[in-house]
């Protein structure tokens, strides 16, 4: 790097390296800049996919064709799924906040392989571009759903190949991020930061990174098989050639179920950061949360079959998968109890990030508890592939990960940008979003209970009432998102500047460094000598 002399004083935002302007960003190996690159990319694509979702909900406001036909609807939910899953929630928290804060929180100057980290973002972008080409070339936008189930995925004339290949490339990006994080956590923790002194967000990233490493190759090879199937007619999943379509589902879910934990574990980590800070109290049962994180990562690897309860699997397999599924519920329950117990006898400071964390608890409980309904065999048979499932996973993936993501943005915003957002607008956005979210997804539980299957662009009149409510909820939720985004974007550009190191009173290392952080984060790597959420000094210094 060109000038090594005085960068210690400048923040990473102002630092001028070899390149200037936009090149200084897209060629930067600084973990913080890469984190922001991911954030901006996701902001863009989240908006696109959210609009697709809004249009779909609008189509469903009445039976019959209201604003689009079946082909459009089918390609919309496919693209919505691909973007939301592969571009937003799978990389989501690790790529944005993991990149930005993991090194700072464990007292490192960067990740272990900064250049591979940049490569990972580039692969991500290339993957996105490949996916996008599927929309404008060949036989038209793919209409398989994000699951690419065989044999439909190689019979449809639509342009499935680029979508699959794009997802494959993004898988590489995910693997590289995972490798980077595992090595960073093993090799670069600050002196004195033993494993059990590491904050919980890095812990969950550690569990996540292992799943990224061990599960992503499975989807990689599965997508390769789909490509081989479509290009060479090789016959692995084609019943006409002896292939077994159910085997495709096995392979797909061997990745995609652990992928749900890739999505939700870091979200749990964010919540585990926010709750103690705003309760001014050590997290309750630190070890239990660490243990349950690793337990989820491990057991979550072996429950994929609960996505296939009605697919024609053997009864023995159904029994096994249902049993394992219930086991994986326990660690999540433990976490919820620990979070609530952390608030007990705390001193609760009500700020926007804390609102997001509390609403996370509520929607995550609904998501988790409805997961139990789906885990039980008899009830699953009725609810499988209905709107109940759609509601359940939106509660987990959007409610869980999405709320945690929003919480993370509002929590770390001042540190990242050196500016503060308008708290009143932020709270208003949160309130509208929360109401919209509930009225969008809660009716879907009822629709599913009454038997409306998913991926329907049209439905029988008996489902009309709940669909109206749900579609209106979508409009409310979008309004909330607009307020939140407008507030954040405006504040990032021209909000009041702040250099306060620790606006929330946090204890982890990212609150000890400059705001915004300097290029190398630390002038001197601090030595760590206690657990990450020790608020005893706060209690001592407070006069009651």
């Amino acid at each position, binding site marked *: 790097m060109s000038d090594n002399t005085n960068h210690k004083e400048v923040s990473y935002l102002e630092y001028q390296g070899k390149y200037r302007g936009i090149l200084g960003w897209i060629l930067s190996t600084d973990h913080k800049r890469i984190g922001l690159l991911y954030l901006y990319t996701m902001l863009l694509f989240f908006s696109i996919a959210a609009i697709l979702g809004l249009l779909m909900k609008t189509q469903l406001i009445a039976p019959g064709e209201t604003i689009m036909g079946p082909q459009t609807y089918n390609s919309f939910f496919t693209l919505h799924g691909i973007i939301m899953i592969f571009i937003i929630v799978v990389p989501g928290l690790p790529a944005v906040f993991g990149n930005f804060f993991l090194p700072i929180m464990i007292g490192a100057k960067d990740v272990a392989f900064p250049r591979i980290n940049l490569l990972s973002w580039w692969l991500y972008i290339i993957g996105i571009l490949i996916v996008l080409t599927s929309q404008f070339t060949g036989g038209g936008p793919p209409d398989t759903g994000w699951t690419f189930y065989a044999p439909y995925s190689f019979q449809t004339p639509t342009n499935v190949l680029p979508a699959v290949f794009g997802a494959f490339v993004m898988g590489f990006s995910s693997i590289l991020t995972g490798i980077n994080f595992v090595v960073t956590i093993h090799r670069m923790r600050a002196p004195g930061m033993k494993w059990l002194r590491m904050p919980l967000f890095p812990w969950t990233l550690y569990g996540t990174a292992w799943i990224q490493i*061990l599960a992503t190759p499975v989807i990689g090879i599965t997508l390769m098989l789909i490509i081989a199937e479509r290009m060479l007619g090789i016959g692995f999943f084609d019943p006409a050639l002896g292939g077994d379509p159910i085997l495709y589902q096995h392979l797909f879910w061997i990745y995609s179920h652990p992928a749900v934990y890739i999505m939700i574990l870091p979200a749990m980590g964010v919540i585990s950061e926010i709750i103690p800070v705003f309760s001014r109290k050590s997290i309750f049962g630190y070890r239990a949360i660490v243990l349950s994180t690793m337990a989820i990562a491990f057991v979550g690897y072996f429950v994929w079959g609960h996505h296939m309860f009605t697919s024609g699997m053997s009864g023995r397999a159904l029994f096994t998968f249902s049993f394992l599924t219930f086991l994986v519920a326990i660690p999540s329950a433990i976490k919820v109890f620990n979070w609530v117990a952390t608030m007990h006898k705390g001193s609760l400071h009500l700020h926007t990030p804390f609102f997001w964390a509390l609403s996370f608890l509520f929607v995550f409980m609904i998501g988790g508890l409805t997961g139990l309904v789906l885990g039980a065999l008899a009830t699953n048979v009725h609810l499988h592939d209905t709107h109940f499932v759609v509601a359940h996973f939106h509660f987990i993936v959007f409610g869980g990960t999405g709320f945690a993501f929003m919480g993370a943005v509002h929590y770390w915003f001042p540190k990242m940008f050196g500016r503060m957002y308008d708290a009143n607008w932020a709270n208003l956005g949160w309130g509208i979003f929360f109401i919209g979210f509930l009225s969008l997804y809660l009716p879907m539980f009822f629709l599913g209970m009454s038997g409306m299957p998913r991926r329907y662009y049209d439905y029988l009149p008996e489902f009309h009432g709940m669909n109206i409510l749900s579609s209106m909820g979508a409009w409310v939720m979008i309004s909330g998102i607009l307020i939140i985004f407008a507030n954040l974007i405006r504040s990032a550009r021209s909000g009041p500047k702040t250099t306060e190191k620790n606006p929330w009173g946090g204890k982890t290392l990212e609150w000890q460094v400059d705001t915004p952080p300097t290029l190398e984060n630390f002038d001197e790597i601090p030595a760590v000598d206690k657990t990450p959420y020790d608020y005893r000094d706060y209690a001592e210094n407070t006069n009651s």
Partner: protein
Amino acid sequence: MSEEKTHMVPYSTQIAALLALLVLTGLSVAITQLEFGGYNTLAAMLLAGAKAVIVLAWYMHLKYEKQLFPVMVAAVFVIFLLVLFVTFFDYSYR
């Protein structure tokens, strides 16, 4: 600058490992030419497993690495075998 001391494997050990691998290869070819029915597969897989252990331990230096590495490799194999096992809960009972 690397703070861990490196281990040098003598040529003789590597040649010995190669000879062992070649013998095992010959053995597995020989065994599978005989008709043992189902044991055929088992024997071939066990011999392949033995070869894999030799490659992992000597050529890939697991024998000389920090404890963490062998544990991780073993864990990966265990996860793979568990996935295989759980998959056959479906296929064995269909």
